[in-house]
């Protein structure tokens, strides 16, 4: 099970980066970044996972019941919040870029241009 989770994480990271590198559109590129990020979620949840254990919520279980690692879940939760703000910021930038340059193709966009 653990090996499967690690493989899925590596695969997601791989396809995400392939998507970013070959991307021809900013929004597609941002989507690929979220794929990369999903790889870290799978990895973290795989690390914290334990067979036969429940969710780490103890209000209706006695303390000591087997549970998956709550630290990893806290990590993932925090990261989801961070990534949401990052994606929003990137999309906002993409929108503004489109208003000014009328294209979102990374091949045609570069910050400073050589003087012709």
């Amino acid at each position, binding site marked *: 099970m653990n090996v499967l989770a690690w493989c899925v994480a590596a695969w997601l990271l791989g396809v995400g980066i392939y998507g970013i590198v070959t991307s021809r559109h900013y929004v597609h590129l941002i989507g690929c*970044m979220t794929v990369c990020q999903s790889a870290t979620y799978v990895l973290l949840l795989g690390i914290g996972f334990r067979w036969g254990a429940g969710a780490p919520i103890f209000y209706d279980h006695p303390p000591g019941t087997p549970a998956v690692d709550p630290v990893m879940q806290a990590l993932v939760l*925090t990261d989801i919040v961070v990534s949401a703000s990052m994606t929003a910021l*990137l999309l906002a930038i993409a929108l503004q870029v489109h208003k000014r340059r009328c294209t979102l193709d990374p091949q045609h966009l570069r*910050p*400073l241009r050589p003087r012709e």
Partner: protein
Amino acid sequence: MGLAHQLTPFAALLPLGVAFLMLALSHWLPPRSADVTSLVVSLGLVVLCGWLAIESLHGPILHWFGAWTPEVSGKPDVMLGIAFSVDPASAAVAAFCALLFAGSFVFAWGYFDKVHAHFHILMLLFLAAMIGFCLTRDLFNLFVWFELMGIAAFALTAYPLGKSSLEGAFNFTVTNALGSFLMLAGVGLLYARTGTLDFVTMGRVIASVPPDPVIAGGFCLLATALLTKAAIVPFHMWLSDAHAVAPSPVSVIFSGVMVSLGLFGLLKLIAMVFAGDAQVMMLVHVVLFWLGVATAVVGGLMAWAQRHLKRLLAFSTIAHLGVMLIAIASVSAIGTEGFLVYLVGHGLVKGTLFMIAGILLARFNSVDELELYGEGRSLWPAGIAMGLAGLLLGGLPWGLLHDATDSVHAGNHGVAGVVAIIVGTALTGAAVLRATGRIFLRWSGVPAVELVAPTEREREKGNRPLWLMLLPCVVMLAIALLPADLAESFLHSAASGLVARVVPHEGGGTLAAAITFALTILIPAASLLRRRPIRKFARRAVEAETAPFYALHVLHSGRVTDYVVWMMVGLAVLAGWLKFG
């Protein structure tokens, strides 16, 4: 110890709290209050962090949030809490961050009138993140501060909403966000093996287990993220875009301290977590050393080949980061001492230079050294400051940067390192002096490689009085001119608190410093005396000279997709060396 222990969290809480208050009240605040408040807060933080640095000389100050001390769990190896741990080096770096912010707030006085207090709010968030990053002792907490630092920086870059600044911010965000994903994965891997996130406990576990590929892999991922933030070759591409297009008060912070903070984080991780892992330490000694060498050389060459002043300074920052990485890779007390002084000296000088670029931008709506030819004569005080800063950058045998370079040379044990430091330092100083000569003294010289470099006209708000913009420059240069010996005993304990390893000191620093400074003077002199090549032989020589620079220009393509490829190449180098090296 009691009071220091109580006050530690306020180093991060104060700017956060003030930022939130300002956000809540931003519509009702009188116009200048945001300027005043943020200046007072940052100066207060200089005092607080400086005081913490001195208090912690007797031993690290630990603050466990919510009193979740290690004893609470009842088991010796289970850490439930998150701690801030103040050691002299970390607190001093935090105090320096706050000092640079204070300078930037003075420089930006009235610059961002139209946007309520949003600039100041983002800046205070940024400062809080930096201080938290310096003081934390928990790996995941470090990641959170790292992300917060990133988000504030991304937003500040995109802030002018110009074409270039948006695209620069996009490149910056994508590369650094990707780095932080890798960092999170690295945190996960390390937690999987060590079962803790606390630096010290983690270091103890790593030292006690046999070499483990998962731990080494975790280090590779963390290093990729921090080296991306620190713009080390081949992770450096984003920096020249972001720093060239960000508003100049923000570039002061970016180049002055944000990027070197990435290296400081790496140093802390190497010293506190990975010191017991022989495999990782070999990686640091060999691969990070060579990456530092490459960074210093590439940064120096690219800085020389620029005409857009902010982009020139951005590449010069890259070169100096390479020197700092060489200092870290020696993993020695003297190298660490050199790194700490270098961080401060470089931050002051580079901050000054970005402010002068900002002054030129405010007055002439351009930072192009060829367009501004001779324009700066009316601003001669800025010219003097820029010339002095250029000399300091290029190894003037006086002041903090010189003393720091001496220590780096003393800890460095390779000819390649010495050559790289000389090339990087001399070329960046030479580039700044060349620009100073052209802008302020009407010295000419036919442009060669710099003619084809990317450039753009920009606009920044220009109605601020000159003395107000020059004031922080003068103060910062004055501090940079102090000798490092003034704080010698503090530096010794700060450096050996992080890395205690003592190495035999390498001689020859004086000779290297003399060569560096001679080159810094001779290269721009030769360039400013250059005449148009007429004869066939002379034209061939110029073509041969410019060819490598063209190649470098082509590699720094400005496309984010290329940057990601280079990042992956860098990660593959780190991982490949671990596997096969």
